[in-house]
């Protein structure tokens, strides 16, 4: 009896492991076909020794799946853009996080890309910041771009001299303001939910920017500012890790079923749209704002009212060109939208696309708001108080870059955790 049980348990365990291993393979293998042809069948060592003459090879490490309809996909598309513009070659690895690739570290995986010929490596996540520093120090001959980080910001809090590393980030604060504006105009209940990832400087300032945009447009539309509710719920990471983070689908559902009729995604993918789509099909009037990737609304156009997105191509192009022609300099770049056309793929690092679910009238109001921002409207102007009521910006005082980047709390009027408890 006991033996049988042990045998059964053994069999079940093995089967479980096999299934666990099989499942993701099946999912991710399908779309593989469309990506570029596999590298020449020669052993990798050969490739390293003799890269195709003059062709620049860059590596890209993405924290999530390359087709996540969000943060990582925006980077992947930028990589394709670089291949096209520069005739360069991209080598990439996605799902670079300890949950998906147990036992590995990003700096180790970056070395795998270098072994395949990469002369420059892009680390695409805040989660890889420490690893990018480690890697940059260990490989001074390899160029490194750390997206969203601030290590080489001379005015930053964590400045380090890393000559081969560049920080690149878009001023998404503007994009989030537009997202907040669209949300406030669309909401009938005056309750906006913000699906927050983890809590840090970046996420605090972006959630707060969304709030500033929402409040501005809410008031412009003639509503009572006191009637606007804006709540942030943090899930604990950039995307769902079962058993580790809160489930963003569940969080979205909680928002939608408690009167928050618009949810803005602040995480790496727009799962809120899926939930909105489901509830909308059941007759509820709910909407969502996507994030990160220009075509993210396509996932659920009937409930998507817009998407603020990153366009990494232009700044990456400049950085790689500088690496090629020898003018590279370690610097911190926080790129603003191209106000003459925020959706210009060749010039604007941050853009916003109105979603199909945004009404014509509201779309016009959002466009007018974008024009105001382009004209110099700065919502990071006092009086602004922090969530606990302390004054942050005096009346008329315009926030410095440091004050925005390192925002210590959420703002007064926002609900949700400001700092870890």
């Amino acid at each position, binding site marked *: 009896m006991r033996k049988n049980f*042990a045998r059964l*348990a*053994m*069999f079940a*365990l*093995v*089967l479980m*492991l*096999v299934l*666990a*291993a*099989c499942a*993701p*393979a099946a999912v991710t*293998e399908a779309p*593989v*076909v469309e*990506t570029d042809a*596999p*590298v020449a*069948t020669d*052993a*990798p*060592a050969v490739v390293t020794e003799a890269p195709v003459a003059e062709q620049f090879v860059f590596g890209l490490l993405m924290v999530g799946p390359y087709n996540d309809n969000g943060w990582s996909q925006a980077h992947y598309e930028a990589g394709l853009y670089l291949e096209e513009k520069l005739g360069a070659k991209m*080598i*990439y*690895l*996605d799902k670079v996080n*300890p*949950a998906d*690739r*147990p*036992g*590995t*570290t990003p700096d*180790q*995986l970056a*070395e*795998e*890309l270098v*072994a*395949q010929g990469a002369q420059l490596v892009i680390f695409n996540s*805040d*989660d890889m910041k*420490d690893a990018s520093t480690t890697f940059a120090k260990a490989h001074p001959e390899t160029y490194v771009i750390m997206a969203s980080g601030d290590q080489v910001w001379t005015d930053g809090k964590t400045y380090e001299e890393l000559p081969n590393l560049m920080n690149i980030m878009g001023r998404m604060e503007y994009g989030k303001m537009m997202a907040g504006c669209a949300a406030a105009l669309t909401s009938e209940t005056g309750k906006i939910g913000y699906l927050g990832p*983890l*809590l*840090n*400087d970046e996420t605090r300032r972006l959630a707060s920017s969304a709030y500033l945009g929402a409040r501005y447009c809410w008031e412009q539309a003639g509503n009572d500012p006191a009637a606007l509710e804006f709540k942030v719920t*943090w899930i*604990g*990471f950039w995307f769902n*890790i079962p*058993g*580790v983070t809160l489930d963003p689908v569940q969080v979205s559902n909680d928002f939608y079923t408690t009167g928050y009729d618009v949810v803005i995604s602040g995480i790496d993918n727009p799962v809120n749209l899926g939930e909105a789509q489901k509830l909308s099909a059941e007759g509820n009037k709910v909407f969502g704002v996507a994030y990160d990737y220009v075509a993210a609304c396509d996932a659920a156009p009937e409930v998507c009212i817009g998407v603020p997105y990153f366009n990494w191509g232009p700044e990456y192009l400049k950085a790689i060109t500088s690496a090629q022609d020898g003018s590279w300099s370690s610097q911190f770049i926080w790129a603003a939208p191209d106000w003459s056309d925020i959706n210009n793929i060749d010039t604007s690092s941050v853009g916003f696309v109105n979603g199909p679910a945004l009404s014509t009238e509201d779309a016009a109001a959002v466009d007018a708001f974008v024009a105001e921002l382009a004209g110099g409207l700065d919502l990071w102007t006092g009086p602004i108080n922090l969530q606990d009521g302390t004054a942050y910006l005096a009346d008329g005082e315009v926030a410095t870059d440091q004050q925005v980047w390192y925002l*210590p709390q959420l703002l007064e009027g926002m609900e949700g*955790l400001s*700092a*870890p*408890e």
Partner: protein
Amino acid sequence: MLKGRLGGFIFQFLAFVLALGFVSVILISAGASPMEAYKNMLTGSVGSMRKFAEVLVSFVPLLLVTAGLLITFSAGLWNIGVEGQIVLGAIISVWVFRLFVDSTLPPALIITLAILGGMIGGALWASLAGALKTFGGVNEIFGGLGLNFVSTALTLYLIFGPWKREGVASMSGTAPFPDHFSLPQVPELRISLWALGIALVGIVIVYFILQGTYFGLKLKAVGKNFRAAYLLGIPTWRYSMYSFLICGALAGVAGAVQVAGVYHRLIPSISSGYGYLGLMVAMLINYQAIWAIPVALFFAALNIGSIQLPIVMKLDSSLAGVLQGVLVLFVLLMEGIRQKFLKKA
């Protein structure tokens, strides 16, 4: 032909071929060349010194865990809780590092304390599963699984709560320790010879216990026939507890090495699944310590080599896990078939 060592070997070889064939079918159905995939995995694991060093980084905890599991398996125990024992080893070692983060004591001493702390942490956590089994009558599989969940919850609580990074609440992990808290590594490579030494010492001790001591003999007696061992005067419950303690200590060291040698901080998946992988290795080698090194090395090589699959062939690297699982499955299956034939013969 079926009997004896040769027969066993032939059947195992057959199982290996079948497993490779099975995975090849999966690869072909995904439109990829199996030969190319295997070649990439091979060059990706032993193609350069650096890659082989990465294999060793993965080999160290896997070997330690396997060594520990050989002890509990010998005592007839299914220590599924080994995963949590790794985690607790990691947690305690992080705790020790945190205690001494501003201390002027020599780093070598602090690292030693952290590893010893990990050892104790793993052993104590294992003793919980052992106590549940011997005093509470809770099957060690269920007790272990439950404790695994508790250890994960504890990790998440520490990362998100008391040990969070300043101003940050993220499941990403705690702040990394200063460089001098790392196990010294071979220049240009990520492997620490100290870590490798610890793992080898671990398996040698286990081999010695099982092959050359009365203690080992009694453990095996308990494992082979609990009741008979009891009647012959072996304090069976005590031997069960000893085996849990030894296995937990080794798993705890594995966790401490993950902290001091690989991640330098606490992350949610600090165990990297080496506990479950170690169970597979132990099953595959039919609980014979002598085979632990080559098979653990092979599994580690599959883990590291498979990183090439997404980079070079745009395939998912979980293929390594499929191969590992299928291999164990076929080996067990072939063994079952052999036993059937033997009975008939």
